[in-house]
């Protein structure tokens, strides 16, 4: 373990110290300083001490990473307190922005330490991305607040969070309409029919050669064009959304499933042939298992496509609920927080959907080389 100082932490320390003597905003009385901001100065001092400690001793490992993360949290309270203090910030607050830059440095080092620890699913797959995500939200909040960006252009995460809490019932209603009714049904129908057709035309190279280029053509059609037509054909309610999703998800599944069915190696097939196995035996015992990674690939693509499809289709006509409806109407009502709240719900739902599929994939295709160490 070398004892050269850690320049990144040293830089953070210097920035923090410099910030302590610079103004952090302006009120009627003139420039304000950290010293006048009450107890948050203690957090900043603690962050300084920890940054100095890290700069000098170059600590390694999980504990050090967590300690630096704590330093960041302690320091981060300062800028947040300023946002609510009624000061003019923007360019009047170099002390505020220096602290933010210093915290960026410290966060980076903390993430580096955590990411570099011994393999650990909890730390690497959950803790590090979660910290990073929280950090992005924090920066968003500070920048939006600090630069006084109009709420109707971009609200901060805290405002969005408040709206999520206050409108939970409306969001839940929209979620039920869009996700549970449209997305899940459309996803199941589109992926399912794509898979069935793949099995059906698997034995006909003729149909495959006819249908696959057509698939390329259809996937080149932007869904936004299909949505108004489907609304016209299938009405306003969730049925037309399902139709849009089916059109969008059918071909990715067809193409992937066909590729997967043909992915078995020559030798693996010859083995089945040498056993004089029937078509269905070969399908069930060789080709379907072999196609699973491809099928999951399509399912993952389809999960994001179907969410997008449902929301877009709702732009073109819907009963007065649903996530797409909410987004498009609340923009008109200047209720931008509600728009972002709905987007947040969509993103969380989409990520969870994706994660569930990824876990399923891991469980069913555990044998695939990409999952082996």
């Amino acid at each position, binding site marked *: 373990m070398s004892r050269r100082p850690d320049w990144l932490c040293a830089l953070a320390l210097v920035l923090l110290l410099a910030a302590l003597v610079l103004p952090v905003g302006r009120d009627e009385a003139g420039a304000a300083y950290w010293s006048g901001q009450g107890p948050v100065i203690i957090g900043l001092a603690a962050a300084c001490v920890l940054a100095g400690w890290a700069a000098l001793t170059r600590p390694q490992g999980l504990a050090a990473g967590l300690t630096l993360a704590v330093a960041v949290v302690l320091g981060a309270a300062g800028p947040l307190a300023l946002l609510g203090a009624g000061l003019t910030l923007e360019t009047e607050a170099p002390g505020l922005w220096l602290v933010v830059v210093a915290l960026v440095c410290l966060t980076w080092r903390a993430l580096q330490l955590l990411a570099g620890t011994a393999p650990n699913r909890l730390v690497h797959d959950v803790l590090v991305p979660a910290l990073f995500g929280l950090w992005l939200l924090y920066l968003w909040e500070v920048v939006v607040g600090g630069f006084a960006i109009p709420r109707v252009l971009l609200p901060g995460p805290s405002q969005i969070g408040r709206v999520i809490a206050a409108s939970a019932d409306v969001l839940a209603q929209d979620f039920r309409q869009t996700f549970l009714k449209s997305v899940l049904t459309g996803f199941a129908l589109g992926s399912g029919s794509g898979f069935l057709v793949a099995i059906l035309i698997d034995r006909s190279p003729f149909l495959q050669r006819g249908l696959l280029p057509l698939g390329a053509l259809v996937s080149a059609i932007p869904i936004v064009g299909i949505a108004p037509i489907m609304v016209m054909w299938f009405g306003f309610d969730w049925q037309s959304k399902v139709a849009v999703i089916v059109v969008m998800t059918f071909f990715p599944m067809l193409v992937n499933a066909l590729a997967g069915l043909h992915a078995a190696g020559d030798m693996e097939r010859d083995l089945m042939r040498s056993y004089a196995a029937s078509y269905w035996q070969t399908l069930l015992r060789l080709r379907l298992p072999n196609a699973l990674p491809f099928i999951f690939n399509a399912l993952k693509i389809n999960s994001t496509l179907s969410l997008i499809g449902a929301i877009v289709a709702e732009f073109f006509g819907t009963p*007065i609920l649903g996530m797409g409806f909410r987004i498009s109407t609340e*923009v008109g009502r*200047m209720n931008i927080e509600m728009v972002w709240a709905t987007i947040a719900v969509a993103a969380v739902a989409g990520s969870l959907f994706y994660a569930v599929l990824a876990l399923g994939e891991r469980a069913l295709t555990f044998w695939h080389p990409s999952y082996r160490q």
Partner: protein
Amino acid sequence: QDKLTLQLKWVTQAQFAGYYVAKDKGFYKDEKLDVTIKPGGPDIAPPQVAAGGGADVIIDWMPAALASREKGVPLVNIAQIYKRSGMMLTCRKDSGIKTPADFKGRTLGVWFAGNEYPFLSWMDKLGLKTSGANPDIKVLKQGFNVDPLLQKQADCISTMTYNEYWQVIDAGIKPDQLLVFKYEDQGVATLEDGFYTTEAKLKDPAMADRLARFVRATAKGWDYAVKNQAEAVKIVLNNDATGAQKANHQTRMMSEVAKLVADQPKGIGYLEPADYERTVATLLGGKSDPVITKKPVGAWTHQIIDAAMKK
């Protein structure tokens, strides 16, 4: 020349003929203005553009502007272009609807994105619930066109006197197969196309001067458009970037729009405080789902129009 940006509420069409005419005929230039007209679209919210500084003046409907004002965008009406409302509900006769009382249990198409406020207060006035567990009427978020009526997915849809109504007619339905309820006649009319700008801009004397010249030239533009409708339509078509507008439709729109602009003895753009009060009363009338919760203060000014009239 002073630069000025105008954000429209919708795509280029005869609804906005006056502005295009003023630009093309050089009325703005005469006032030493270099005006940029930004077309809108279904998902462009003009107040958002104004809040972000993307436009100096926007065209919007008063309900939406007042709602935005409550949401923290300090919009002020500086001129009211349309005297009357062109909104109506168009129903098929074969649906059996004869009076607004028959709406109960029906499916009605409504535009959202800020256009739904007058409808909601109308339904409130009729005592019909539009949301909640057991709504009295089924509301559809009406899309971009009149298909729901043609395909009988809705019993009535929202139309403008100058636009969608004629699309229904073009689709082959005869006027006598239709029944229209004009918002004007139902006493729920609210003010439509007007100029709005932000309080900050109004405080700047240079900008206020620019706006006054703009309003003056615009009035001239509308006056010219109403008097030379064929030429105005041609100008609109020339400015349509999509190339999708049809001359016959725009001609009809021009003549309908002319009726909405007409009849302003104090000059085009003069906001009658009484009209404003009526709009506010209608909006505040909504009990279940109020559009605005309290009487707005400072939401309009005659400062600009007065300056414009002076010269």
